[in-house]
């Protein structure tokens, strides 16, 4: 490992290693080591950060601005918290059209409005032509944990069930379609959305909600691996229960992708006490961003992340390495 590779940023095993070896070991503190989507401070305040470098900047179903707000709103919520405040920091290439910048900022404002959060601090850097490709945005977010909540990546226990709030891989495929000039009819739109209202309702189930995680980079597969590792459990999902659009599946077949590796930006994985599984599913389905929610698996003590296939067999789920590459074999 002597140079940073694209795969180090792709979500998956390469990234995990980079983070563990370079960042976690050096910064080493109980907050960071928790490996949560958001740190828990002062007992009930969540804090999270993410930079957004998506290409193209405007993609089917959204843009970098909406993504930057939703991504952090979602992460800030994933400890069972209500997100309240965001910061946003722009890095802009010299020569970037101000009109596009306005569109992005408007899109952020709308997403913030929808999520009910306020953008309270900002920063703007302009770097010389070629110093950055267009525009990057960082957002950090603060939330307040709901009363009676105890949500953590460490809380999954054998017997719990695993839910997803909707179809898998829409964002990743929307981006891919724009980059690889794949055409879809109807077009595949990114699912980029704020999930905090859905989570707010879900949190009425209190401690029955054990884990919340949004399957962004690395996709559903990576989140399952993270839960498995941090909770010390196994997870089994059912292939025939996975909600996925036919077109996303087709395109994956075409290019040799596993849709479990595709990024989602408006979905969450929840691990819930089995007794409340149906109730949780109902709550999800009642939300505008949870209509396609499904119970997709269960927690066991195998320590493995497996899938029950269509064929009545079971196999380990392929863990993403990093960069998603179209392939022919």
């Amino acid at each position, binding site marked *: 490992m002597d140079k940073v590779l694209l795969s180090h940023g792709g979500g998956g095993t390469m990234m995990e290693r980079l983070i563990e070896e370079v960042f976690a070991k050096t910064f080493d503190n109980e907050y960071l080591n928790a490996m949560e989507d958001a740190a828990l401070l002062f007992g009930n305040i969540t804090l999270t950060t993410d930079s957004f470098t998506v290409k193209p900047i405007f993609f089917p179903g959204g843009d970098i601005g909406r993504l930057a707000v939703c991504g952090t709103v979602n992460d800030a919520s994933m400890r069972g918290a209500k997100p309240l405040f965001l910061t946003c920091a722009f890095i802009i290439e010299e020569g970037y059209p101000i009109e596009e910048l306005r569109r992005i900022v408007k899109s952020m404002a709308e997403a913030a409005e929808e999520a009910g959060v306020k953008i309270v601090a900002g920063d703007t850097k302009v770097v010389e032509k070629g110093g950055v490709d267009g525009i990057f945005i960082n957002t950090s977010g603060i939330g307040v944990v709901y009363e009676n909540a105890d949500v953590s990546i460490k809380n999954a226990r054998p017997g719990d069930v695993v839910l997803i709030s909707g179809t898998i891989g829409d964002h990743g495929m929307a981006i891919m379609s724009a980059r690889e000039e794949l055409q879809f009819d109807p077009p595949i739109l990114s699912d980029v959305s704020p999930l905090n209202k859905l989570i707010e309702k879900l949190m009425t189930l209190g401690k029955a909600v054990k884990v919340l995680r949004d399957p962004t980079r690395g996709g559903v597969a990576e989140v399952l691996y993270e839960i498995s590792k941090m909770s010390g459990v196994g997870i089994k999902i059912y292939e025939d229960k996975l909600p996925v659009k036919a*077109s996303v599946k087709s395109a994956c077949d075409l290019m040799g992708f596993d849709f479990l590796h595709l990024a989602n930006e408006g979905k969450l994985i929840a691990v819930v006490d089995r007794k409340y599984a149906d109730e949780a599913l109902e709550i999800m389905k009642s939300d505008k961003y949870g209509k396609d929610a499904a119970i997709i698996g269960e927690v066991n003590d195998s320590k493995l992340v497996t899938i029950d296939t269509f064929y009545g067999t079971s196999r380990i789920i392929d863990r993403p390495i990093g960069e998603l590459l179209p392939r022919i074999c």
Partner: protein
Amino acid sequence: MCIAVPSKAIKIEGKVAETELGGVIRRVSIEMVPDVKVGDYVMVYAGLAISVVDKEEAEMERELWEEVTEVLKDAANRND
């Protein structure tokens, strides 16, 4: 070694066909399958149609399956 998937030819223009698969539209070269007609399924590999899917044979494969299950029946009978 070769991820090829069947797609339906929905438009043909010279050496190129527009194909559709589960909502995915792709332009593919049909130079190697000159007889392809709109409505046909082609196997597409790396942007090139390498074979037209034979509907009758697809049907036959299903029949073959039925036939093979006869083996099962026979065997079951034999075991009786």
